[in-house]
């Protein structure tokens, strides 16, 4: 098991709503998969597929109903007993969320999110080393520190904010980045540079990326491996070529057929 970074086994998440008559929603149903080291794994699914729920469970934000997630041999939900171990986990696993508008607290300058990153890895944001790390991380993601530091979130564009979230990852250098629809709220013409940053993280720091998206095109273009989710279950998987050319499950087939392609008109549209 030398190459496995994160192991998900029989993960299930059931939501219960209602006070007297309880309704059960199974968001994630007995899902198992591994994330390898230095791998970009795409999790493709539409809304309601459970992919974002899995992201939050791996990020240790919401607890699973059953199943295990092992990182570095430890079960991240059962074997982490105190806040020190939790912080150690987060030094290794970090998110890039979808919405560049709600990931920043509007009451604070954007610098705060970078300082939080520094403090997480035990660096003082006020000393020279810390300040240099912040500047370098911004440059790494193609941002000019003078245009970014000291600004409030509403003064920056969505693309800039998304890059700051990735700059955070360049500071923390986690072993795994969980990116949940990181570019879906960015214009298509501006996505390319941001997508390249994920390659960057992998090449520079051996970071693995769990790339969660509904867009099969993006998944095909960036990932080493694709897993397809439908209604809380993994229904298909394989290399991008395999999944796209030879989809095994009929949902995958339908998904690929339904992609509105620029270069090709659907045969059944007229």
């Amino acid at each position, binding site marked *: 098991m030398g190459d496995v970074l994160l192991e998900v086994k029989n993960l299930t998440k059931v939501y219960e709503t209602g006070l007297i008559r309880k309704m059960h929603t199974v968001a994630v149903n007995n899902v198992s998969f591994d994330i390898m080291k230095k791998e970009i794994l795409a999790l493709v699914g*539409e*809304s309601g597929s459970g992919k974002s729920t899995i992201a939050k469970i791996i990020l240790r934000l919401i607890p699973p109903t059953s199943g295990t997630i092992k990182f570095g041999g430890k079960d991240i939900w059962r074997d982490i007993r105190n806040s020190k171990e939790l912080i150690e986990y987060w030094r290794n696993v970090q998110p890039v969320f979808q919405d560049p508008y709600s990931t920043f607290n509007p009451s604070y300058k954007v610098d705060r999110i970078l300082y939080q990153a520094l403090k997480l890895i035990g660096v003082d944001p006020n000393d020279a080393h810390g300040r240099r790390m912040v500047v370098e991380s911004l440059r790494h993601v193609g941002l000019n520190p003078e245009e970014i530091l000291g600004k409030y979130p509403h003064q920056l*564009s969505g*693309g800039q904010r998304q890059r700051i979230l990735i700059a955070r990852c360049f500071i923390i250098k986690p072993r795994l980045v969980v990116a949940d629809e990181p570019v879906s709220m960015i*214009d*298509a*013409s*501006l*996505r*390319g*540079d941001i*997508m*390249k940053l994920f390659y960057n993280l992998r090449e520079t720091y051996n970071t693995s990326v769990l790339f969660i998206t*509904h867009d*099969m*095109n*993006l998944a*095909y*273009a*960036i990932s080493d491996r694709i897993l397809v989710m439908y209604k809380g279950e993994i229904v298909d998987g394989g290399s991008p070529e395999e999944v*796209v*050319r030879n989809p095994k499950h009929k949902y995958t087939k*339908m*998904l*690929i057929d*339904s*992609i*509105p*392609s*620029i*270069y*090709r*008109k*659907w045969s059944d*549209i*007229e």
Partner: protein
Amino acid sequence: MSEVLRIENLKAYYIQILAGKKIYVKAVDNVNLTVRSNEIVGIIGESGCGKSTLARAILADFSPPLQYISGSVILRAKNGKELELHKLSRDMLRRYVWGVEMALVPQFAMNALTPTLRIRRIIMDIMKSHFENVEEEKVVERASKIFQSIGLPGDVVDRYPFELSGGMRQRVVLGLVAMLGPSIMIADEPTSALDVSTQKIVLKTILDLKKQGYVGSIIFITHEIGAARQIATRFNVMYAGKIVEEAPTEEFIEKPYHPYSSLLIRSIPDVAEVLYYGGSRMKKEFTSVAGAPPNLAEPPTGCRFHPRCPYAMNVCRREEPPMIHIESNRFVACWLYVKK
């Protein structure tokens, strides 16, 4: 095919007062557009290009802070008369144009169905606001027929909006438009919040509306080229308040002329391209358009795209390129194609 709508040199700016000074946000700046009967025209643009403002301007929905500056919007009504929309009062527009000759399906329309009313009530409200002597039985029957002809279940009229999925609600909205029978339907981002499988259904429905004669022509405004090309016959590319290229769909995809158009297409990864064309056009490499869309209050001088254009020449920085006619039915506004 005859012209149903002709927009000439239309300018519509937002007027803002900031620290005592008047600022003009040039969201629609000298736009020319024609729509012929039974045509589906696609308007492609990304955030900040002014496309939603264009939707309003096409309807002549000018209310503060959006102001009509100059130009014309001429509609050929169903009775053959030519109406100069930019000259009509809001009252006239409300009575004779909006919902009658032209209908707008705004972005997120499916979320605008009042959740506490049954669909039949919503239908009645809409019909009553446009027509007199509306009989519930007849109206609901007609609505049911239309809904069924676009693939919705027969009992949809008795349901509440919250009982329906996003795709179904979008199709209910399209069905409502069908009931009004406008000659032009403007759809602003009708598929952007939907799953890929639902997108296909909604696009088919939009096409259906035209095929079954419920609407005459369609203006399809979106940032998703892949979705638009499935049903649009012509593409207009909008950038920073201007139309920079116009061409028939297939020719546009085959060979986009304007640098922005070609960079935009190149930056979108496409699985079908790999499957059917061997990936010759799509390398597994990510490309972007450099920079960011300009501030419409202070657009760049000359060609608005020049700060981000890899082919920018001196003239591009100085003067705005004219829209020129290339080949039989293509237009582009770029100095690269202007012969000396």
